[in-house]
Structures are given as C-alpha cells and as structure tokens.
C-alpha cells in the first residue's frame, strides 16, 4: 500500500519537504534532495514507498544508504506525480536490463524520463520531457586512491588536462569529468558497464565551458547535451538527448 498522492494532493507540506527545484537545463528539470538524517521526513517518505521498495529497504545494511534510498525514491515519486498528474498508488517502476528505473503509470510507460543519483547528504532527481536523461552527483569530500584511477577512466585529453593541475583544482576537475561521464553512462542505461576511457567529455567542456554536445556513434546514435551543474557543495552533471534515437533502451 502506498499513500494517496494525486499531483500535489497528499504530499508532505512545504515545511517538511526535502526536495526543491535545483536547475532546469533545456527540457530537463533537476531537483535537489536533502539526505541529511531527519526522522519526520524519513517517516513521511516511507509512507510513499510501495511494497517492493520497502522490501529493498530491508536489504540495506546500514542506516545511511537506507536513508538515501528512502528519501530520494520518495522525492522521485513526489515530483513524478506532479509532472504526470497521477496518483502515487498508480506509479510503479520497471527496470532496464542494467537496472535503470523506468516509471510506469497504471502499468504503462509514460512520455517522461527520469534518473536519480545520491552521494552523502545530497541527492539529485532529473526529469526529461524530451528523451533519455542521466544524472550523477558526488559530494565534495576528500577521497582515497583517485590518482591511480586516471589511466582507467579517462581518455588522453582528459588525462592531459588533469596532468596540468594540482590539489583542489585537480580534485574538482576529476569530479567534474567523472560526473559528466557517469551522467552519460546513466543516460544510456549502461552505468559502470561502459568503459569510461573509450570516450571523452566534449572538447568545449575540457576548455572550461559548463556545457557541450556529445556524439559518439560507436556508443549511441543520438546527440547528447552534457551540462556541469555542480556547485560549492557538490560536483554534478546531467546528460540528456538533444535529438531522439528511435526508441532505444538498454
């Protein structure tokens, strides 16, 4: 059983809401989801989840990933209900071959694409009215062993850019490149199964622009728009289809 939630009706009140509009590049709406511990929000979020999602919650081993899942999935449900004008009870998800959630209303696919990402206390939900979308967020915090990863995940121009940088600028650029690539890989639905070293972020972004167009016929026939949507607290990127490749889902 899930709580009734027709559009805005039945949704947690403004004072309790843990998601807010973050940015809206092109046809995409991105919402920020606060994932800090908050018993009232977590209780409200729980009521929005369906039986399958609650079962999934029981598999999490520690409170932090469970909280991230509950708060971000409930926020996804809330924004989808508003965008689709549907009742929360009608909303379910099917999963693509590699696990990307696809929203269904009354068991049918809808003309809206979504993706979510969470890291530490930040979640992002992206909705696209035009085509496939992928989003990735990484909390800005010190991380171990990233230097040794450069050869594995970046192409030659990306490596050359990183080789010129140090300290905070190196880490910021690493995370900008990683989130851009993961946003693309999540838009394609492949996730980590894409070899990140075989494609590079658009050259205009390597030159410092916040957005660029990505084309790589070996991977996808569509043209993708990539946007850096990071801020002081988080590194993040969103990737969305500029023109639709006929009905392809991995």
């Amino acid at each position, binding site marked *: 059983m899930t709580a009734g939630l027709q559009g805005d009706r039945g949704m947690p009140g403004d004072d309790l809401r843990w998601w807010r509009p973050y940015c809206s590049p092109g046809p995409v709406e991105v919402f920020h989801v606060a994932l800090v511990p908050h018993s009232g929000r977590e209780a409200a979020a729980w009521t929005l989840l369906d039986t399958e999602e609650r079962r999934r919650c029981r598999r999490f*081993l520690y409170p*932090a990933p469970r909280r991230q899942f509950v708060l971000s999935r409930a926020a996804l449900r809330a924004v989808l209900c508003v965008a689709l004008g549907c009742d929360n009870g009608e909303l379910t998800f099917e999963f693509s071959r590699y696990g990307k959630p696809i929203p269904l209303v009354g068991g049918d696919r809808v003309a809206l694409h979504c993706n979510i990402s969470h890291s530490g206390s930040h979640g992002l939900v992206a909705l696209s009215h035009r085509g496939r979308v992928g989003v990735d967020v*990484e909390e800005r915090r010190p991380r171990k062993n990233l230097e040794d990863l450069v050869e*594995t995940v970046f192409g030659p121009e990306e490596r050359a850019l990183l080789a010129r940088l140090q300290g905070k600028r190196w880490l910021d650029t690493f995370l900008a490149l990683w989130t851009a690539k993961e946003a693309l890989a999540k838009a394609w639905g492949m996730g*980590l*199964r894409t070899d990140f070293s075989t494609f590079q972020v658009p050259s205009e972004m390597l030159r410092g622009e916040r957005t660029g167009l990505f084309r790589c016929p070996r991977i996808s026939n569509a043209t993708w728009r990539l946007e850096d949507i990071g801020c002081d607290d988080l590194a993040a990127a969103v990737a969305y289809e500029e023109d639709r490749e006929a009905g392809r889902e991995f």
Partner: protein
Amino acid sequence: MSSTEERIRALVDENLEIDGRPPGRPLDLDSSLRDSGVSSLDFVAFAKLVAQEFGVEVSMEECASINSVGELIEFLDAKAA
C-alpha cells in the same frame, strides 16, 4: 581464512568508506556493495587499488560485474590461478 581474504579485509578497513559501518565490525563478504552504500566511484577506485596490490589488471567492465567483497576475492584468485 585465505591469504587473499586477509589482505582484502585489511585493504577494506584502510581504504573503503562504508557509510555507517561501526568501526571494527567484521566485514560480511557476501553482502552487496550497493546495499552497503558503496558508490561506484569509491568502488572502482578501491578495485583498482586492490588490483595494483595483487599485480593484476581490472577493467571497468570487470568492476561492474563484481557485486561483493567475496566476488572481488574470487576474481583475484581466478586471475592468479
């Protein structure tokens, strides 16, 4: 405990941030990394470190097919065999 397992447990404790895992709590080898809250970036960085320690190569595709620390140990043992 196999020597691979012993070395991996030490590497996990030193390098892999498992959000909320109480310090000193023994690692469950069969638990899903995703269910433990390990992000893909942290896991790929960890798998690369472990591969270097063991003198083997690990591709991203191989990383994507590894779901638990137990599977990482099996992967390393198979590469060494």
